[in-house]
């Protein structure tokens, strides 16, 4: 039976006597602001949320099961479709994990290209996220148009090197697929140089906007304890004031060479989460400037890396990176065969929405949409494993 779209329930006080009515509604899976096919069963007292249950599985595409039945390299295009905004970082996380398992080295130039791609991905993800976030608050269209205008410019760069706008399938175990040319680097430099100006403009419009302040400041504050207990990662955790960034903790790739700061929030409310994205973009621009300046010449693939008939030695490995949404990890068990024995994804979106109920309780139903928007979920990543 399909779920009921709404249900009226009695509201009980401590002694069990009825003192009113509660309304249970089903938001989603077809809802313009749930960022995909996501459903929330919300129990409302008037306009206040008293209970919220996230229901996922509407986009369960058996990602992990497929990954266990195909070769290691064949999983690479599937990782594009996990978090379809950030295919480059997904590629990198998977490539990093397999390199750790097989002990492959990555040439210097490829490491630089990976950092450039990852930070460009962070820029376009955060820009479009802010567009959607403000869209959810009722600013229909305009900020999103600005955001997508900038996003298209970055997608052009991706398309030029990888051949695809969104599903790049660009990284390989032991390097990247094709080298970038000098003209591409010059164009990227130009884009990065102009990006600061776009951010200035965006911030002028939004930072002191009265509606944005009223809708975000003090709404759904998260304490450090709550954030850590729910094992949040990414901008959501840093907005709550916890200094944890996998780029700084693990220093994977060549991130130890770059000079950048990790912005931290104070209150963990929606405004902090918004500002966190803006500040992270500023830091990404710093990293991009350094990477584009220092990129050396050389090969982009480890000559020892084998693409076809790749069989790593038996063992298990967990590799992780800081994707724009948080810690993205892959856990692989190899039995020495051509395909992994176990293939598991630790998606940041899925783990970040586990705390959705705590964030929404006591808030109005209109705030639920904005809170969900601030978590930055992508359903391909949320529903990658078996539905619970």
């Amino acid at each position, binding site marked *: 039976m399909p779920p009921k779209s709404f249900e009226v329930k009695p509201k009980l006080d401590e002694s069990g006597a009825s003192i009113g009515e509660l309304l249970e509604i089903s938001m989603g899976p077809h809802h313009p602001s749930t960022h995909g096919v996501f459903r929330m069963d919300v129990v409302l007292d008037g306009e206040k949320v008293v209970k919220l249950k996230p229901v996922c599985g509407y986009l369960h595409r*058996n990602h992990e099961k497929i990954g266990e039945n195909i070769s290691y390299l064949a999983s690479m295009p599937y990782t594009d479709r996990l978090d379809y905004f950030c295919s480059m970082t997904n590629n990198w996380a998977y490539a990093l994990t397999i390199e750790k398992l097989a002990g492959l080295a990555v040439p210097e130039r490829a490491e630089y290209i990976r950092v450039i791609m990852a930070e460009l991905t962070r820029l376009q993800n955060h820009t479009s996220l802010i567009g959607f976030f403000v869209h959810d608050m009722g600013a229909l269209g305009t900020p999103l148009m600005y955001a997508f205008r900038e996003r298209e410019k970055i997608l052009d760069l991706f398309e030029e090197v990888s051949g695809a706008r969104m599903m790049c399938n660009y990284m390989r175990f032991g390097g990247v697929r094709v080298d970038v040319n000098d003209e591409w680097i010059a164009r990227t430099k130009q884009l990065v140089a102009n990006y600061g100006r776009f951010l200035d403009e965006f911030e002028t419009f939004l930072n002191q906007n009265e509606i944005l302040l009223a809708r975000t400041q003090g709404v759904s504050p998260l304490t450090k304890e709550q954030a850590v207990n729910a094992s949040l990662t990414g901008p959501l955790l840093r907005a709550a004031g916890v200094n944890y960034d996998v780029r700084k903790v693990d220093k994977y790739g060549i991130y130890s060479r770059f000079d950048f700061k990790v912005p931290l929030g104070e209150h963990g409310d929606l405004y902090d989460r918004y500002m966190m994205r803006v500040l992270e973009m500023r830091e990404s621009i710093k990293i991009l400037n350094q990477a584009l300046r220092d990129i050396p010449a050389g090969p982009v693939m480890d000559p020892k890396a084998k693409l076809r008939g790749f069989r790593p030695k038996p063992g298990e490995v967990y590799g992780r990176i800081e994707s724009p949404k948080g810690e993205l990890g892959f856990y692989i068990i190899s039995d020495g065969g051509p395909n992994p024995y176990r293939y598991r994804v630790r998606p940041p979106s899925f783990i970040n929405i586990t705390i959705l109920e705590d964030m929404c309780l006591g808030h109005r139903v209109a705030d639920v949409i904005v809170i969900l928007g601030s978590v930055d979920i992508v359903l*391909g990543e949320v529903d990658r494993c078996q539905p619970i």
Partner: protein
Amino acid sequence: MIEEGLKNELQKQGVYVTSLQELYNWGRANSVWPLTFGLACCAIEMMAASMSRFDLARFGAEVFRPSPRQADLMIVAGTVTKKMAPLVVRLYNQMPEPKYVIAMGACAISGGPFKQGYNVLKGIDRYLPVDVAIPGCPPRPEALIHAIMTLQEKIRNQKLTGPDRPRHLNAEIEGEYPVPAYGKHDLEPPKNPDVWQPPTMTRT
């Protein structure tokens, strides 16, 4: 029907002659309102098509309506899982006639890269009459624009009377499509035999 030559001659004099059918189809073809209905990756390209660079508004199709009651085009943008398929069909049933379906991307056409999965519907055409299919994973926004232009062409050539008139003008055809349910092993029924039959192979 009026002759083309006479029609052109009259137009030069400022007299426009047309048939009700042409006027009706002209109006409908140029104001297609799609349903805001994103399923997966392709939905992002669908959004990009309606945003700054590609500007779907040039084709009269930018008014994305969140409610199926106000929409007349369903763009099935993304993977339809077995959990989602009943809802897709129900949304389609809620749309007023005349209505159209674009299957956007490999997943909506056939299951795409996820076809081998146990939870993925192998093409939305098993339940809904698809008018235009766009291949690609995901198709570019230009491909979606092309699909909308193809659909407009189709609407312009529709007949209002006669045996090949559209469904909504035929009182004998039932308006709603059967909604599948999640059964013990699979969706029940696994297909709508009125719109889809498994291909038959004949050996010669």
